[in-house]
């Protein structure tokens, strides 16, 4: 199962142009953290590298916080 710490680490590894707070608030939408669409692509690339799970485009739209990503991967088992 993917932990919130692993999601945060994936964000740190995603080469984001914005300075992220530490720890990253888990309920704050990525756009409020200053991430743009390409940053979010990068986060999901890191998550796929980590889990081997491809997240469909339609699902990404609803996954805009660490909490929601955590819940999504938890449901995937």
């Amino acid at each position: 199962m993917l932990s919130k710490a692993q999601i945060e680490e994936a964000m740190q590894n995603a080469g984001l142009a914005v300075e992220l707070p530490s720890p990253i608030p888990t309920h704050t939408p990525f756009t409020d953290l200053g991430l743009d669409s390409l940053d979010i692509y990068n986060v999901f690339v890191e998550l796929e590298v980590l889990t081997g799970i491809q997240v469909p485009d339609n699902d990404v739209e609803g996954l805009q916080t660490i909490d929601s990503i955590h819940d999504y991967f938890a449901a995937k088992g």
Partner: protein
Amino acid sequence: MIGINSIAVYLPTESIDNVEQGAAFGETEDFIRRKIGATKLTRKAETQETSDLAVAAVEALTASSGLRADQIDALVVVTQNPDGSGLPHTAAIVQSKLGLNENVAAFDVSLGCSGFVYGLSILKGLMRETGLENGVLITADPYSKVLDPEDRVTSLLFGDAATATWLSADAAWQIGKPLLATDGSGADNLRVCGGRLEMNGRQVFNFAALRVPPQINALLQAENLDPEDIDVYCIHQGSAAIVDAVSRRFRTVKDRFILDMDETGNTVSSTVPILLSRFMDKPGVSRILISGFGVGLSWASSILTKRT
């Protein structure tokens, strides 16, 4: 051994201010510079055909190298936006416009951003098999023909350009055995539909970020090289974000991945030869890894080595 002798580039004089265009789509200048990587997108004139871009590139090649037009005996045009509807093939039109003699093998190759790397091995193999002596590999794929100016996803990325690469025996740069790959299940992610270019930006980005680094690693391994043995990585300039996503997988040599598309944009199969024309004569550069990836989905990588 057949290799690369010289490369010439033709860039149309017209261009679009991409910062202005980005603002119209609600994008900041910072986004255009740091994520797209191009503040200017070159555009062919309305009256220019693909073959005109190709002819201009070959004329630039003959003007800048020792190659004479009458020495050319093989002509390959990499394009998916040919003259007219692609029948006849653009290479034949280029042969005629350049006034080349009839003993020229001329044909098109339908590939996008991987086309230059594929084209090198196609032309090299043809020349080796047939004994042809002076081959010219042209890239000319003006996406402005199929861009929808209202489409934010594609309009901010692509520029027009053409390049011409002279292959001959005893050339300065040797072309290594390439790794070539295809995943047609992703074909719908970048395609022309009803005359309009459509792109699933996330899927194309994922493809580049996840499939290209393993191929580069496999090539290095096949050649028994470490990442540090490559002086310059000239990979397809899809966007600044894509170059960054690929290069991030090579932390120790990340700064050797060239990003140089500010004045042109993504010129499809021309991005790699444009980079080569700028970097292959730099002092201290003797081994270059090239990688092209995109439409198909298709990806290809090879290593060029300078003869000592």
